[in-house]
């Protein structure tokens, strides 16, 4: 009697362990499904990178980056552009050449001196527009933004193209 009682207990505890394992497994599956779903949801609705809140990768003069592109465009693209479009965040110092508006009603400040062939064309954010309202040609300033493309002479356009920066804001020095 005593022996069979013992094996019964063992059976019961085996069943209990199996139930426990199944329970834990179910909880794990549930939790990972929630996390997985959350990740997918987050990925799908992932916010755009806030360029102004991103650490500056390079701080340099407008003429310096233009000359880097003139010297070797491939090397400069390798250095500054990102394969998923999250390219380098730059702080560029330069002289205001002109200020215009784009079709999005954002300000476009071109940093270029009169004698330079190409400069840096900086499109400001909606928040940054007011900061450039009182600027004029010849002002010296620093602009932070993300680089989109480099400078080069285009033989079809028959002109020099500027370095392009967007999501820009003035940097107070």
């Amino acid at each position, binding site marked *: 009697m005593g022996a069979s009682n013992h094996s019964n207990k063992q059976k019961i505890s085996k069943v209990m362990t199996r139930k426990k394992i199944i329970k834990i497994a179910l909880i794990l599956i549930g939790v990972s499904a929630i996390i997985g779903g959350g990740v997918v949801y987050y990925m799908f609705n992932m916010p755009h990178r806030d360029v102004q809140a991103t650490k500056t990768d390079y701080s340099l003069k407008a003429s310096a980056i233009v000359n880097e592109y003139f010297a070797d465009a491939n090397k400069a693209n390798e250095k500054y552009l990102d*394969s998923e479009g*999250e390219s380098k965040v730059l702080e560029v110092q330069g002289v205001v050449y002109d200020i215009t*508006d*784009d079709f*999005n009603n954002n300000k476009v400040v071109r940093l270029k001196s009169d004698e330079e062939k190409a400069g840096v064309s900086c499109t400001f954010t909606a928040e940054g527009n007011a900061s450039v309202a009182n600027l004029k040609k010849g002002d010296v300033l620093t602009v932070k933004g993300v680089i989109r493309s480099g400078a080069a002479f285009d033989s*079809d356009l028959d002109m020099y193209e500027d370095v392009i920066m967007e999501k820009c804001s003035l940097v107070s020095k």
Partner: protein
Amino acid sequence: MTKRTVTSVFLGAAMMALFAFAPAINKLLSSKTHVKLFSTTPAENIEANNYKSVSVIDTKTGDVVFSVPMQSFEFEKALMQKHYNSPKFLDTKKYPKAKLVAKITNLSEVNFEKDGTYSAKVKGTLELHGKTNSVDEKATITVKGSAIKVNSTFNITLADYNIAFEDGKPSTNIAKTVAITVEADYAAKD
């Protein structure tokens, strides 16, 4: 050679140089541009906007050039923008610019000096994603004083530019043909 001939040769060369580098008044430049991509499928509509293209029109020869910085296209969803830029799709690090080089073929029907709306036929090539194809599209040119505006809408077939979506979700969510809408304001190029 006498001093006089040297002087006149020098003067002549200087005059020629001056003419060669004289500002070309027949050229129009636009850096105020808007290029929109639009793809529609039953699954979703995808739109991307670009405000950083540069364009030049030569009113005498009818040459039209459009240079489009590919990383300047902005999508509503950040993930879509990353997909678009990635080497699997447009590979914008390797091909940072797209370029249209074309000619207005009915230039005689467009008067850049007279106010009005003109329908222009534009024929040439589009280089995108490292692949060049011929394009033959229509554009509307609106002249109002010295302000000249160009509008155009046309379709491109992604497969023509080796933009393939073989696997995964994007293949069902992105249309095979994408509508491109172009708007540009031109002024005399200095």
